[in-house]
């Protein structure tokens, strides 16, 4: 079981490493979007502090969305996806490996960069840990849900915009609990409930979305 999983994971990570520039674009997008907000809403410190969790989360969500189309597009173009679907290995398994690789490449850098950016918004240092934890639990859910959308829109002309329309409503609960975790920590009620819900959501997403994604890929490749 673990063999094909690790093989696909290693392959995708190697490919991503060879094309490092692509990965950096997602991170740069995240940083720039976050930095745009003070220009839009004004640089008043209290206000920035209040909107920081939401801004960081929305930016993370948008950069995830931006990178989603790459999840299967390359493999679709060069025929790898077809070969993988023909292989006897369970589809959900290697789909999960691909999503994990995708998250390591695009999601993990955001999680690591987030605390630094939070300091630009003068977020209390004690909340940085909660922010990192909420992103670490939440952004894989975004990648998993997004993978279903990416598989459904694979190879369509209006794929990018359509993908956004499909997955953004589904992202809302993750956004609520992710940004809510930091907010409630700052508000003094503690972030445990939010983080537990995010963790539960992550487990649920790992259990269910690979199968939906596998079904969507089969439909797309028929």
């Amino acid at each position: 079981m673990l063999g094909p999983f690790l093989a696909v994971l290693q392959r995708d990570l190697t490919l991503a490493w060879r094309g490092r520039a692509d990965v950096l674009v997602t991170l740069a997008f995240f940083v720039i979007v976050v930095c745009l907000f003070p220009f839009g809403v004004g640089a008043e410190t209290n206000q920035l502090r209040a909107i920081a969790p939401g801004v960081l989360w929305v930016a993370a969500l948008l950069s995830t969305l931006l990178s989603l189309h790459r999840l299967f597009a390359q493999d679709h173009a060069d025929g790898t996806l077809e070969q993988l679907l023909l292989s006897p290995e369970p589809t959900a398994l290697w789909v999960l490996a691909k999503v994990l690789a995708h998250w390591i490449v695009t999601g993990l850098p955001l999680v690591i960069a987030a605390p630094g950016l939070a300091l630009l918004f003068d977020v209390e240092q004690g909340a940085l840990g909660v922010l990192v934890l909420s992103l670490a639990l939440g952004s894989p859910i975004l990648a998993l849900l997004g993978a279903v959308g990416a598989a459904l829109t694979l190879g369509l002309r209006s794929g990018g915009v359509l993908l956004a329309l499909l997955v953004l409503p589904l992202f809302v609960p993750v956004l609520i609990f992710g940004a809510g975790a930091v907010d409630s920590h700052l508000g003094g009620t503690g972030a445990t409930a939010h983080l537990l819900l995010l963790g539960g959501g992550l487990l649920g997403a790992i259990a269910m979305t690979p199968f939906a994604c596998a079904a969507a890929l089969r439909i797309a490749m028929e």
Partner: protein
Amino acid sequence: MMNGTETETEDGTKRSRSLLRFAAPQVFYPIAGRLAPWFAWLAAGLCVAGLWIGFFVAPTDFQQGEVYRVIFIHVPAAWMSMFIYLIMAFWAAVGLVMNTRLSFMMAQALAPTGAMFCFVSLWTGALWGRPTWGTYWVWDARLTSQLLLLFLYLGFIALTQAIEDSRRSDRAGAIIALVGAVNVPIIYFSVQWWNTLHQGASVSLTRAPSMASTMLVGMLLMALAAWAYTFAVSFWRVRSLILERERHTEWVAAELDEQEARA
């Protein structure tokens, strides 16, 4: 609409043994055509009765005055928009499991009506909110989840329209409908919790518990009208879908010739 038990033994083919008989587009097309006008008239009648009771018979609300009468459109539309999504997801699931093309067509025929009701409920809600709450929009849990439901409908419609191959668009639409259906309760509860965390129940949509019975009758009539309207419109829409999908078959050619001869 499907009571197929008595037709069990009529013809010998394997498919006719059950309700699946009606899953054949060729069989369903004339049935839908016959039923749709009835439902349309029923909808018109119920709508007139419901609106008459709503606008002329039901008493004026002592708190909100006449403005509350928007409820007779607002609430049935909101009910219907949520219910249609469930039916859509149901037909999508049936289509994926039983591999019946008609189920997918039915799901696609229902989606625009669902989106329409969703929009109507949001629009009338905004018009109702302005005089009573002093604002067109609040980020109340119900309003927000209704807005997200509209986005789910639009996503479904956009996806099924974007894929040209009908087999793929059917299945892809079915998957997104099911993913959406799993998410609808999660969205609803998360939004509810988010709202109560932030501002408490500043605006409550629940009305005074005692409701004049005429109001209830008016609302139920309008809800039934919405049902009948949905049946009529989705039957008409599914007929067009059937004709489009089956345009290469002989029976469609014969049917079109007949329609042309009549016209």
